[in-house]
């Protein structure tokens, strides 16, 4: 307990003392006629904690002990239920001894206060005889479960906030807010368990806990599946990147930068999630470009250059059946469009280009510039920002550029997973334009047949040809 901050230690100690007082009071007031109900309930809490321990991979858990404690409130009242809540102390967890004691104390206090509330609003103990009317216990039961929820939440939030020295509101919004409604729904189990228990005794536990266990099991399976899904997606995307050493981690970073821009623009969370996938998959069409072309050293022919440009169209072909991607599909398709209409594949202008595509274009160029490529070293974030701003309105949507700059200013940017710089050409050879090396401007500057001859002579053409082969 020494590792806790002083305030947290004081708080935990006082909660433990309070719970101790409650239990002593209960020992005095509890009528032993209810022992036949109390003991099986205590046993069930222990069984629930032992047989279904917290799954380490699952973020949100449906606790089986909670509905049992609630049922005990209705069955035993304020002077019996705290014993059931205190049974939470028995759990084969990796928690420290004081954490387990705190859980037990929390259980006892929640049960006690909820029991007092139940009796105060006129709830009668259901006991063992089944002589009650549902109309008379429904409302008190709802009050009891609400009190239980609130006390439970307050005690959890307080201890987390004091231990980690963060604001209680942050704790609540961070982890518990989304649990409030499901937790209230689970309290229905407590009500049902109490009612059925009063008819048929402990066999009701089997009946009530069966659907709950199944729900919990499916829930865990879902979370595992979701993780499996994301891992698979990531590894398949990595297989795009194995074709070209220099783009390692590119998709993940573009995804991250796109999300930064999206959040700055106040995008809804479901669109953000779609944008994340769009960033991850934006170059998936490169899987369709022959490795020989992608890895070719030296100048590309017109056909080969076209093959690289095809990756946007192929990306769309590959992803078009993925319903959950939604807007992301057009983002992948059109991420090489330019605001001035000189991009590909369609040559769209300004707001004709979907929002996702405009975002990915900026994120993509930013990551290309700040990471090491075969023909040049990485540029600093500051240099990249200057370049992005220089191309506002011609190549990029100004709003998206500024959103990215703001986001990086306030949250920083971590360029990880780049290649050692000693294997690449010196920085003098950095081309002086922002981009994205399969950008049409490169073709123009090279004087490739598909575009008008321009100021290609300014550049070391061999260097830029490497850029072409490498892509974004």
């Amino acid at each position, binding site marked *: 307990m020494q590792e806790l901050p002083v305030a947290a230690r004081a708080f935990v100690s006082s909660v433990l003392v309070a719970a101790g007082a409650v239990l002593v009071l209960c020992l005095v007031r509890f009528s032993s006629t209810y022992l036949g109900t109390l003991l099986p309930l205590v046993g069930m809490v222990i069984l629930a904690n032992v047989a279904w321990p917290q799954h380490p991979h699952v973020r949100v858990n449906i606790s089986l002990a909670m509905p049992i404690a609630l049922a005990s409130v209705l069955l035993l009242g304020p002077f019996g239920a705290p014993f059931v809540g205190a049974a939470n102390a028995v759990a084969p967890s990796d928690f420290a001894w004081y954490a387990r004691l705190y859980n037990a104390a929390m259980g006892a206090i929640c049960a006690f206060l909820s029991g007092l509330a139940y009796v105060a609003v006129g709830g009668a103990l259901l006991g063992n005889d089944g002589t009650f009317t*549902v109309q008379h216990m429904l409302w008190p039961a709802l009050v009891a479960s609400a009190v239980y929820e609130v006390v439970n939440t307050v005690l959890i939030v307080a201890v987390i906030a004091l231990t980690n020295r963060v604001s209680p509101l942050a704790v609540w919004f961070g982890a518990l807010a989304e649990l409030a409604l499901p937790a209230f729904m689970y309290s229905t189990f407590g009500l049902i368990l109490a009612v059925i228990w009063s008819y*048929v005794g402990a*066999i009701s536990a089997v009946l009530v806990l069966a659907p709950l266990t199944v*729900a919990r099991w499916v829930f865990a399976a879902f979370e595992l*599946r979701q993780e*499996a899904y994301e891992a698979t997606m990531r590894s398949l995307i990595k297989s795009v990147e194995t*074709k070209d050493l220099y783009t390692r981690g590119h998709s993940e970073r573009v995804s991250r930068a796109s999300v930064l821009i999206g959040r700055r623009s106040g995008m809804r969370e479901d669109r953000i999630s779609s944008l994340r996938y769009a960033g991850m998959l934006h170059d998936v069409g490169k*899987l369709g470009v*022959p490795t020989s072309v992608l890895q070719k050293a030296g100048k590309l022919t017109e056909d080969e250059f076209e093959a690289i440009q095809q990756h946007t169209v192929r990306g769309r072909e590959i992803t078009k059946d*993925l319903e959950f991607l939604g807007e992301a599909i057009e983002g992948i398709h059109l991420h090489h469009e330019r605001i001035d209409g000189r991009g590909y594949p369609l040559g769209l202008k300004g707001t004709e280009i979907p929002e996702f595509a405009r975002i990915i274009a900026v994120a993509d160029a930013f990551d290309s510039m700040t990471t090491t490529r075969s023909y040049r070293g990485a540029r600093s974030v500051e240099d990249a920002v200057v370049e992005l701003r220089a191309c506002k309105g011609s190549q990029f949507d100004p709003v998206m550029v500024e959103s990215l700059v703001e986001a990086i200013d306030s949250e920083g940017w971590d360029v990880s997973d780049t290649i050692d710089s000693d294997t690449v050409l010196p920085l003098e050879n950095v081309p002086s334009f922002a981009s994205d090396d399969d950008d049409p401007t490169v073709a123009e500057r090279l004087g490739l047949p598909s575009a008008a001859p321009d100021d290609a002579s300014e550049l070391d053409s061999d260097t830029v040809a490497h850029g072409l082969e490498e892509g974004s």
Partner: protein
Amino acid sequence: MSQERDLRPVGPLLVAAALAVVTAVAVTVSQGVPQVWVALAFGLFIAMGEVLRITLPGGRQAAPLAAAGSLAFALLPIYPDVEGRPSIALAVTVVTVGSVVGAFPSALVGRGMHLDELARRIITTLIAAAIFEPVLPHVAADPRLPDWKLALAMMVAAAVAAVADAVLAAGLRSSMSHSPLRTAVSDEVHALLGIASAITATGVLSALAVPKMGLIALPVFAVPLLLTQFSFRRYATIDATYLQTIRSLSKVTEVGGYTEIGHSRRVARLAVMIGREMGVNESNLTDLEYAALMHDIGQLSLTEPIPGGATTMVAPVDQRRIAELGAEVIRQAGVLDHAALIVERQADPYRPHRGQLDTALPVESRIIKVVNAYDDLVGASLESDRKLRAIERLQLGIDREYDPVVVDTLSRIIDRQADYAY
């Protein structure tokens, strides 16, 4: 998973269910319906449950709330306010009418009614009610004051009905998709164990509570099951997305010109059909499907595509190299190890040394090897001549390269498809 559904076996089941319904309706009409409101409430509950259907893992359809409501009505020990309880005939009638009414909306939008499922529900209700009816007087002197014996009797009746339902479902599945009955039963038990225990528990709980609490118990006791249903729905969504993603990403080899258009999907479809007929269980069938979809992913590491994408045309050493590269990519995911193993061994011969079987070679790999070779020969062609010649060619390789059982099964499936075509 795609499959050719042979609908003939459903016939006898439908006839049995129809007979039961006709008899039940006739008896109900002649006896009249006591407590019309209770019957209506249960019927409505079943209908609503039917509307809220879910898809279970493995593509099974289910309407857990409707099933639980049916069970509750069949097991209702006594009406809320008066003496007496629903007769077996009334239970069958209410369950049928409720289910049909509930299936109406989805039938209207053209999704069709699940007749086989309806038949199963009718027969299950009949079984549960028929077991419970004679036992009731012995376990509850006064059904208004239930005790553990009554609860236990209900649970046993419900459990027997649930097992019967799983066996019926397995029998149908097995004969419709030509899979061995044993595999079908174990698959079905595996898939239904969770949801069936939740349905059983909810049905029994409601039947116990309604006499005391009144009809309000139905919606209250539906909440936990609704929660379970919600979990299943989310699981099914992510499951479908997973398969969708792998299907889409498997197209990359086609888009890049490494393989023929549609190759991986055709291989996956045929491989799953063969696997099912050979008794591969459901979870391995899923891995087989994933592996088949991604079996050419190793080709991405090739600098030049193989002409026509036909891996059977390159040297065995290269085939194996492609298989290993693909397995490496899949293994990186960390969750598809079995699929990776299948891909890794897909190029290995059935009998590497004369007469010596490679016992460690997964049956799924042997299936992919055969189907891959078959599809390289036939492609998207529908000519049955070409198909037969391809099979003949594969049969020449059964001494060493191909598993004869797989080739036989493939040939049976092709024959059957030819039958359907004419």
